[in-house]
């Protein structure tokens, strides 16, 4: 029972003395022991540390010490977040022996907040190269059907939360690596505004596109996680010194009177878009209208421009990070990461400057739209989670998610689950909002959670086992 408590419920019960952090942690560890062998969500379990953290939290809470809403609550981190004294591999052969001396800013905030670290989570190699079977650890699998991918790059985060091992895990998002897995695994995935959450100590994929954020079971869980990790960090060059609001204050305010724009051409014109995804966007729009929101189609620049700008900047920045290893240790990269990075050698100054100049144009266009609308409603994943065999060729995954536009512009974006296909795979939608206004996104997301019926949906309590070979 303790494993199914929301973060807020668990926090309330901890303070009421009706549950202990040790009990929460032992329940999580038991669930991990049962399900992780089939899902490969974790690359490292930190069970002993978790129980130490939990005993400490219980002692502190018993003494009246309250470190905040994650005090005594289990969580887990994608294995690109540096953790002091705990191996941080980026799921790569190139970093198998790396043990950081210092916590990343996010890991430190959770530690200071008394949260319990269950372990480090699988990722696509360097947050880009996957799913892949040529890496030191196997790829994470989708808890709704393990023959299907969980998405990436925050693959282990999605598998862990989606299977109920933990209510919230941290991911990172450079082109959709939080929102894509959230969509494929029926989760809430939040990419905050660029600069809202410190990137310090998180291994970079692309300096100006990287964002840190949570994947969680519910909107409220993500609001709580953001409350803990948001805030100015003078040691992160992108961090902005702005007040952090109470992200739970307006969660139940509803959507009456809010204006929501739909950049329909982005997903409606996409060759890959599935009928189920198009239908769930329309259904969500109608539910929001019925609840009093004003929902209208709008026009933004072509999605292809956002995608080209995002890829150019991402690969140029990543190439500058990995250049020496690409030259001297090419076979130590998995095939997918290597292929994605190596094109950086062919990006010209004209390509990069075109991308940077268009980035400003595209950001202004989204800002302009958000002067008239409180949020945008669009697709995230264009299809339900594909089978592993369908995506092992990296060319096959191009164009099946539409999330990089808000990495290019830096606006906050949120994936919200809405429905399940007849085949039993989750569907979701994406919201994007004004810079620094995550609170409005969470408010609309909370309304969708209620209006869609997702909140009361029975979630899978076990991992499907009717699997054949994952390859092919």
């Amino acid at each position: 029972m303790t494993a199914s408590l929301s973060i807020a419920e668990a926090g309330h019960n901890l303070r009421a003395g009706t549950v202990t952090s040790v009990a929460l942690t032992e329940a999580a560890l038991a669930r991990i022991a049962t399900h992780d062998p089939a899902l490969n969500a974790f690359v490292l379990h930190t069970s002993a540390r978790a129980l130490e953290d939990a005993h400490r939290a219980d002692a502190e809470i018993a003494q009246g010490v309250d470190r905040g809403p994650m005090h005594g609550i289990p969580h887990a981190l994608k294995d690109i977040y540096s953790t002091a004294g705990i191996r941080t591999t980026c799921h790569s052969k190139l970093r198998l022996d790396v043990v950081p001396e210092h916590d990343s800013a996010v890991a430190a905030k959770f530690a200071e907040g008394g949260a319990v670290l269950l372990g480090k989570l699988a990722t696509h190699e360097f947050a880009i190269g996957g799913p892949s079977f040529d890496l030191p650890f196997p790829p994470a699998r989708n808890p709704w059907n393990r023959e299907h991918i969980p998405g990436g790059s925050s693959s282990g985060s999605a598998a862990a939360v989606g299977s109920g091992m933990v209510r919230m895990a941290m991911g990172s998002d450079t082109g959709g690596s939080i929102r894509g897995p959230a969509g494929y695994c029926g989760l809430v995935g939040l990419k905050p505004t660029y600069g809202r959450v410190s990137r310090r100590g998180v291994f970079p994929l692309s300096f100006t596109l990287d964002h840190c954020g949570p994947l969680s079971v519910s909107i409220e869980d993500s609001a709580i996680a953001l409350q803990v990790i948001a805030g100015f960090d003078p040691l992160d060059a992108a961090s902005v010194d702005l007040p952090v609001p109470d992200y739970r204050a307006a969660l139940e305010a509803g959507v009456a009177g809010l204006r929501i724009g739909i950049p329909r051409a982005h997903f409606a014109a996409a060759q890959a878009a599935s009928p189920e995804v198009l239908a769930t966007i329309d259904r969500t729009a109608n539910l929001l209208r019925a609840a009093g929101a004003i929902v209208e189609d709008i026009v933004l620049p072509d999605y292809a421009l956002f995608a080209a700008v995002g890829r150019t900047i991402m690969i140029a920045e990543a190439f500058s990070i990995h250049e020496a290893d690409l030259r001297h240790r090419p076979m130590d990269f998995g095939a997918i990461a290597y292929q994605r990075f190596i094109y950086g050698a062919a990006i010209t100054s004209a390509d990069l400057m075109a991308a940077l100049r268009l980035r400003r144009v595209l950001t202004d266009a989204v800002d302009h739209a958000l002067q008239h609308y409180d949020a945008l409603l669009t697709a995230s994943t264009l299809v339900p989670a594909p089978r592993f065999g369908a995506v092992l060729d990296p060319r096959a995954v191009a164009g099946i998610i539409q999330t990089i536009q808000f990495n290019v512009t830096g606006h906050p974006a949120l994936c919200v689950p809405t429905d399940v296909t007849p085949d039993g795979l989750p569907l979701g939608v994406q919201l994007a909002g004004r810079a620094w206004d995550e609170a409005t996104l969470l408010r609309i997301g909370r309304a969708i959670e209620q209006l869609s019926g997702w909140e009361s949906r029975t979630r899978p309590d076990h991992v499907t086992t009717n699997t054949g070979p994952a390859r092919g």
Partner: protein
Amino acid sequence: MSDLSPAMLEAEFQTFLARAGMELPAERRDVILTSYADFRAQMDVMHMALDATQEPSNIFRMQGAAR
């Protein structure tokens, strides 16, 4: 640029790699060269006419800069 023949695209990419001091591992060569055309086509999408006054996103303000 995207109307280059496959052979010309391969020659172009190999030139870029040589300039970077890199060489494709043989077992990864074919898939990377095949996909290079898609990559170049995506780069070409961005080369539209931009007004000279349209500045890049990394223009910065000195106000607030660490000194």
